[in-house]
């Protein structure tokens, strides 16, 4: 295992063999696979073959580690949230600070890997889906760094609400295409990215933003994010001499969660807790909790839990956190839930926003609203387990992007000072929409 300054595992360690890969066709148990048009099978085969070569190529691995260290700022630290602990039953709460990465979230881990892979494949153009920008900004960033043409698909509704992020992507040289079909949000942006890819596979790689979609994306994106858990495991062991009792992470598509969970899969004493966005409450039907409140089916390339009606039509999700506002989930999470290795709990908008404020005021950290769902889960679990427990929370992103949403939620600024484009409902005020 290669190490970074400080002796921690590096990003490339995440790509090493670990014994938890899906079968050759991408199945995690009954989940995953490739539910997608034949026209794209050759493209995903090419990605799978190239990824397999890259993960064994010392040059690729060295370049990934160099960028992760010198450009993205890895490793990210662990912060002992001592004042937050008082509100979490006295349990020790450790924060894995992915919010401190370049571009402000864990997304950069995956994007750097896929952008390097794009170069290896000799492709010159990348496309990405984004709801409101986090993955889009990360992709635009990596494309700028490596000199790739970049097109980001984004629901029209989101381009209007997230004009600032559209501007960020354009400043970075990306073309942002508003998607006007369907619900004009994230899932439609994803549909549109697939449509682009069918016609452009010759020169284009689709940088999928989460550990979902057809094989090899769930496996590959997971591996690029495994560095989160590898670092955290070494850091916690070294600094506290013990493994955590539980790890909490928010789950939309589930990339940050699978990244931190995965290196702990064989540590059977460690509980893995995914915090799904329950919106107004799972019982109201207005939520994004695909595992807690959904059923199995095929969406966007994989067999997994999803939100669907009795005819198999996708149901629109709802969450104040647009990053979690997606009606599906990565197939490995579905698998981990079915075998009982991970548990998934719903966290409502209100609980997440309480945790958001709590973290701001106790630790001086403004989290992404996505990550606030994991903080809320930790507060709940800490109260249950008490002061002897050690909880590790993946703080997957920073909350600058959510300041407007939070300011409205808590009514902390004069409404007249906010942008005039008043969203129609609290959920419409959602900040970043990401898988």
């Amino acid at each position: 295992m290669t190490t970074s300054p400080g002796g921690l595992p590096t990003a490339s360690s995440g790509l090493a063999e670990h014994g938890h890969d899906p079968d050759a066709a991408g199945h995690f148990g009954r989940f995953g696979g490739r539910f997608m048009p034949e026209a794209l099978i050759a493209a995903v085969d090419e990605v799978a073959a190239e990824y397999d070569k890259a993960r064994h190529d010392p040059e690729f691995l060295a370049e990934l580690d160099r960028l992760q260290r010198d450009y993205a700022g890895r490793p990210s630290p662990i912060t002992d949230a001592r004042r937050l602990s008082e509100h979490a039953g006295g349990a020790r709460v450790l924060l894995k600070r992915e919010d401190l990465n370049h571009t402000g979230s864990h997304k950069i881990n995956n994007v750097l890997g896929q952008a390097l892979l794009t170069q290896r494949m000799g492709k010159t153009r990348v496309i990405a889906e984004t709801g409101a920008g986090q993955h889009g900004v990360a992709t635009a960033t990596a494309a700028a760094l490596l000199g790739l043409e970049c097109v980001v698909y984004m629901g029209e509704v989101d381009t209007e609400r997230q004009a600032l992020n559209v501007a960020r992507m354009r400043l970075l040289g990306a073309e942002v295409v508003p998607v006007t079909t369907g619900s004009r949000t994230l899932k439609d942006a994803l549909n549109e990215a697939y449509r682009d890819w069918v016609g452009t596979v010759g020169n284009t790689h689709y940088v999928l933003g989460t550990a979902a979609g057809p094989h090899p994306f769930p496996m590959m994106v997971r591996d690029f994010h495994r560095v989160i858990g590898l670092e955290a495991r070494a850091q916690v062991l070294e600094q506290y001499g013990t493994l955590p009792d539980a790890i909490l992470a928010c789950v939309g598509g589930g990339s940050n969660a699978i990244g931190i969970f995965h290196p702990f899969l064989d540590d059977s004493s460690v509980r893995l807790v995914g915090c799904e966005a329950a919106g107004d409450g799972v019982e109201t039907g207005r939520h994004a909790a695909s595992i807690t409140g959904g059923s199995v089916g095929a969406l966007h390339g994989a067999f997994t839990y999803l939100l669907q009606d009795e005819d198999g039509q996708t149901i629109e999700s709802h969450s104040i956190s647009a990053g979690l506002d997606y009606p599906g989930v990565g197939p490995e999470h579905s698998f981990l839930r079915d075998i009982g290795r991970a548990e998934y709990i719903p966290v409502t908008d209100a609980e997440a926003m309480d945790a958001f404020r709590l973290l701001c005021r106790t630790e001086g950290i403004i989290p992404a609203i996505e990550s606030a769902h994991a903080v809320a889960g930790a507060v709940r679990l800490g109260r249950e387990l008490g002061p002897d427990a050690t909880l590790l929370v993946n703080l997957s992103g920073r909350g600058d992007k959510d300041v407007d949403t939070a300011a409205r939620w808590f009514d902390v600024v004069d409404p007249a000072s906010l942008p005039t484009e008043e969203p129609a409902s609290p959920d419409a005020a959602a900040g970043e929409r990401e898988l």
Partner: protein
Amino acid sequence: MTAGGANAPDRTGLGVLEDVFTTARAESRAALIAYLPAGYPTVAGSTGLLTQALDAGADLVEVGLPYSDPVLDGPVIQHAVDTALRGGVRVRDTLSVVETLAARGGRAVVMTYWNPVLRYGPEAFARDLASAGGLGVITPDLVPDEEHGWLAATTTHAIAPIFLVAPSSSEQRIATTAAATRGFLYTASTMGVTGARDAVSDTARALVERVRRHTDLPLGVGLGVRSGSQASEVASFADGVIVGSALVSAAEQGRAAVARLTSELAAGVRGNHTGR
């Protein structure tokens, strides 16, 4: 396949679908296959439009089952399907459209993304479609690798599982896809989503030539055909000419426009056809 002996016509879905291509071949022409989605503009309206297409010369219709996330469809079909879904169309409506068409002798297959079938239950879907008189199912986002019992269900109910091949398909994938397919093989003319195009790309002819080396199945070529002359061109090398988006656009103008375009396409598949 039927109890009536070697000379009795095969009235199963598979048998009738075979007839479509045998008949066309006997007439030295390609079959015309017309796509329109169920429920657009309404369920009754779609039945009327599909009936019009059959009456105006389509040998077979593809009844589209509206789905919320049609990743292989361009804007025209997306819009029609959106309209149908907003109008409240259900999976059972697609089956009832097929039933109405079949009752008056129309030949119909269903074109559907996979999740609605998964949700309905693949075995139940095959059973209910066969009992409605449907002949087969085209599944644009299901590859044979993930069929999980679908081939068995379609065999049990004697309807055709119809898969797609694309210009990007490897020789090996063409072979395995053709081996899993019954009725006819959907041959995508180009790398792209559905939608009328000005010219049928050369890749269609090249792909048909490649596919012929692997199978004797009739080959239906789709994606991009919109005119009689294009139909005629495709008919010169394919067994079936599939037209979707152009008919959906015509449907926006009403039944007469669908009839006009279908007649033009039907003449196209009969002209300039050099046979195999």
